[in-house]
């Protein structure tokens, strides 16, 4: 589905990715794990075309490295960025409808989107309850659902999720990941960036570990969960990281 | 990319340098400077002035030029501001071939350049008509106010209003811009001297477009007549709004109210308005009528005062150069002082007075959108 070879990307004048190669197969859920500043978000942005890069990115058999972000999205390669980025001044339903641009293109009238809406509302019933509410006024968990729901409206062929658990209470994270697995099982391949390494490795098929712009380990998620190096570097830290995020959630 | 811009810039500079290089140093041409606003708010004045300059230049050169030399009118943009006028003046003064310089049609700009005229020692004629400019010129060695001063013109209009129209009480509305404020004061003094009453003096800031506030105030005074001192765009707007509000009192206006620009804009509303001016396109003056006709034929628009004035200034200066028999700046200035009875297109000039040199004015009333002379004033 997605095949990246020798990708190099710069962040300002600093090289942030030094030759990344990575693949996501049909129906797969692939996790990308790494510390802050390892280059995970830069990698996703390079794939979605919002950051320029060199190398090769092949999606559904087509080279997309030089494509513009909007056309990559319209090919069905959709990114749910870190920080959710819901359109704050639009209602939930308007956010979802704008999401259909990726699947159906830019057009004057929205047309009939009841099938897509129904599907999203079925996955996230909470969104249906709040469909007339302005997006900024919703909780962090609801916004994350909306962000994912909006991507689903675009009939994704591959979904890239960037830190979906960030800033959410543990109970909300659990609910959300159930839905993510559900989406993946319905046939949408997912490439997920996640700091909560244990959770990511639990739900994914395969994983890559990114350190300072290089992939240092890759393999089946189950194997990586057993790897002592990984355990020490990522799973040990996780406990304190989780505490931090739950504190942030309380403040809201 | 950057390199390309650099190359273009260098090329442009070289071109500019070579162009300016061509004109310099030749003395078979007599240059007369003209500073008028070619851009900015008052750019229309500059367009009349440059049109007139082109006609006059050709007229004089076709008739053999001055002292056997061709004349050339050098125009510099005064931007419609006093600072712009001074800069334009200094640029012209720096050219040794420039024998005399004509200032813009605005008293303030001319007062601003008076100091430079003194230090550059060049004969300078101001087109403005304010009493302040009159005083400035009377005290200056090098500057002349080649026009009838507002003090006489405004008094004449008020005299006509009081004695012949029969208005005894007045409300004055004026622009806060200096020349209009001066005119408003002259109107006020004239009314009081005649024994009339001034009910109110209302002013507005230059650039005001809606006069409802001023006119409602004026309407409440219920004076016999309204007196307005405005620039031409505002003159057209205010007279339209006056009539639209149903105020049908007689209106006496500053020179802008008889100007073709204001008349075109205001349409029917400006009919019956009296004003005092030095010039109307349908002037009875034979020289004026000839110039006006030529101007209209050439440019397909009415010959405004700004055009006729430039014509007279150029002719007066050329006459002075002829009489001096030389292009020496001081000699030309001295010859200018000897011109006591020179017939122009607008009026007769007595340059020995330095200020208020124009000897005549006109009281006009707009009838069917044409400024019609109802009285000729002779000062002096």
């Amino acid at each position, binding site marked *: 589905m997605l095949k990246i070879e020798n990708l190099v990307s710069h962040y300002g004048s600093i090289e942030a990715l030094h030759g990344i190669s990575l693949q996501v197969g049909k129906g797969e859920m692939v996790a990308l794990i790494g510390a802050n500043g390892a280059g995970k978000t830069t990698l996703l942005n390079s794939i*979605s*075309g*919002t950051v320029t890069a060199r190398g090769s990115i092949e999606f559904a058999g087509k080279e997309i490295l030089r494509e*513009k*972000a*909007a056309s990559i*999205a*319209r090919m069905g390669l*959709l990114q749910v*960025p870190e920080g959710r980025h819901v*359109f*704050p*001044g*639009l209602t939930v339903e308007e956010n979802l409808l*704008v*999401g259909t*641009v990726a*699947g159906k293109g*830019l*057009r004057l009238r*929205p047309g009939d989107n009841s099938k897509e809406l129904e599907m999203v509302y079925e996955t996230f019933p909470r969104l249906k309850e709040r469909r007339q509410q*302005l997006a*900024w006024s*919703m909780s962090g968990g609801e*916004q994350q659902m909306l962000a994912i729901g*909006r991507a689903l409206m*675009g009939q994704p062929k591959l979904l890239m999720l960037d830190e979906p658990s960030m800033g959410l209470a543990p109970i909300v994270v659990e609910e959300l990941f159930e839905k993510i697995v559900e989406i993946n099982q319905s046939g949408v391949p997912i490439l997920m960036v996640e700091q909560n390494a244990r959770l990511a490795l639990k739900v994914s098929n395969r994983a890559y570990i990114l350190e300072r712009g290089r992939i240092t380990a890759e393999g089946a998620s189950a194997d990586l969960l057993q790897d002592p190096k990984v355990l020490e570097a990522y799973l040990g830290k996780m406990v304190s990281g989780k505490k931090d995020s739950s504190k942030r959630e309380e403040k*809201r | 990319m950057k390199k390309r811009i650099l190359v273009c810039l260098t090329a442009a500079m070289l071109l500019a340098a070579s162009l300016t290089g061509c004109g310099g140093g030749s003395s078979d041409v007599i240059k007369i400077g003209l500073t008028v606003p070619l*851009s900015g*708010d008052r*750019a*229309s004045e*500059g*367009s009349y002035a440059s049109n007139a300059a082109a006609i006059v230049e050709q007229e004089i050169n076709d008739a053999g030029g001055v002292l056997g030399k061709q004349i050339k009118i050098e125009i510099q943009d005064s931007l419609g501001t006093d600072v712009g006028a001074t800069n334009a003046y200094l640029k012209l003064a720096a050219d040794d071939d420039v024998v005399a310089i004509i200032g813009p049609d605005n008293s303030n700009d001319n007062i601003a350049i008076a100091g430079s005229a003194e230090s550059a020692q060049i004969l300078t004629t101001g087109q403005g008509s304010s009493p302040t400019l009159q005083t400035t010129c009377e005290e200056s060695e090098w500057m002349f106010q080649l026009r009838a001063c507002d003090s006489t013109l405004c008094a004449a209009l008020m005299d006509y209003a009081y004695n012949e129209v029969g208005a005894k009480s007045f409300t004055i509305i004026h622009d806060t811009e200096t020349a209009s404020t001066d005119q408003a004061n002259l109107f006020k003094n004239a009314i009081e001297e005649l024994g009339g009453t001034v009910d109110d003096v*209302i*002013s*507005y*800031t230059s650039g*005001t*477009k*809606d006069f*409802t*506030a*001023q006119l*409602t*105030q004026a*309407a*409440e005074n219920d004076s016999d007549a309204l007196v307005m001192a405005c620039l031409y*765009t505002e003159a*057209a*707007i205010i007279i*339209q*709004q006056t009539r*639209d*509000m*149903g105020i049908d009192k007689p209106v006496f206006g500053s020179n802008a109210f008889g100007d073709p*620009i204001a008349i*075109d*804009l205001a*349409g029917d509303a400006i009919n019956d308005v009296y004003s005092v001016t030095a010039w109307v396109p349908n002037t009875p003056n034979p020289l004026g009528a000839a110039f006006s006709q030529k101007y209209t034929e050439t440019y397909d628009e009415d010959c405004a005062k700004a055009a006729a004035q430039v014509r007279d200034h150029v002719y007066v200066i050329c006459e002075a150069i002829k009489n001096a028999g030389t292009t020496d700046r001081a000699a030309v200035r001295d010859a200018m002082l000897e011109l006591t009875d020179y017939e122009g297109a607008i009026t007769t000039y007595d340059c020995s007075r330095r200020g208020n040199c124009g000897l005549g004015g006109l009281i006009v009333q707009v009838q069917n959108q044409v400024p019609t002379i109802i009285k000729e004033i002779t000062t002096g």
Partner: protein
Amino acid sequence: MIVQLLVSGIAVGIVYGLIAMGMVLIFRAVGIMNFAQGDFLMFGGYFAYTFNQMLGLNIVLSLILASLCMGVIGVIFMRTSYWALRGAQAKAIIVSAMGASIVLKEGARLIWGSIPLSLDKVKEGSVTVAGATIQWQYVAIIGIALLLMLLVYLLLEKTFVGNILQATAQDQYMSSLVGIPVIVSIGLTFFLSAALTGICGGLLAPIFFLSNTMGATAGSKAFAAIVIGGFGSVPGAIIGGLIVGLVEQFGGAYISSTYQLVLIYVVLIAFLMFRPRGLFKEKIQEKA
């Protein structure tokens, strides 16, 4: 007298509000105060003059055509003065807008000359209401402005295209991630903004006349309206415009006609001191 001042205050104020609304649309889309907006007004007026006086078309048709032409100018303006600099500092874009303002001003002078011009009114004559004589043009201005505001409201809030425009204004990065070509969406916003402001020029021209410098005063009053109404708020811009128009008229009649402009700035400064966020907060609060 009060009726008279009220009508002209509302008519002039609603136009300031409409110009301010155009500025707010651009501000919300790209985060830049467009200092050439006043010149859109002037240019729109000249387009209306061209269709109405030079080609002899009916005034309403002329206004519509002028508005469309201005929309195109708006898109060109976006492409030349904003798009190339979108990654640069706001300062750079403001300076380039000022440059564009000079181009528009002097361009208008070259094309249409410097002599002030006038054009047809939407409806000639006047009507007497409660002892006040009111020009039909003022009534027409109020009516057309209200209609335009309603149309813009419907477009932005009730249509899919409006949602897309708002989405781009709120988050360009995310918009491109859902497949919206940002340049098209922003171009459309500039089109809308310039078209709205351009039509105001045609409406004002018969009473205030056209000159290539008319944009400056109107633009600065629209800016005052935005500050009073609250940066980025569309209803705020309209209410702010009405406040500016009414202060100008009533202040001019009852306080000082000489210092009309000063009064507006006094109100502006008072708002900046005591209510710096304006009357209306933006409906979008901090992004959660």
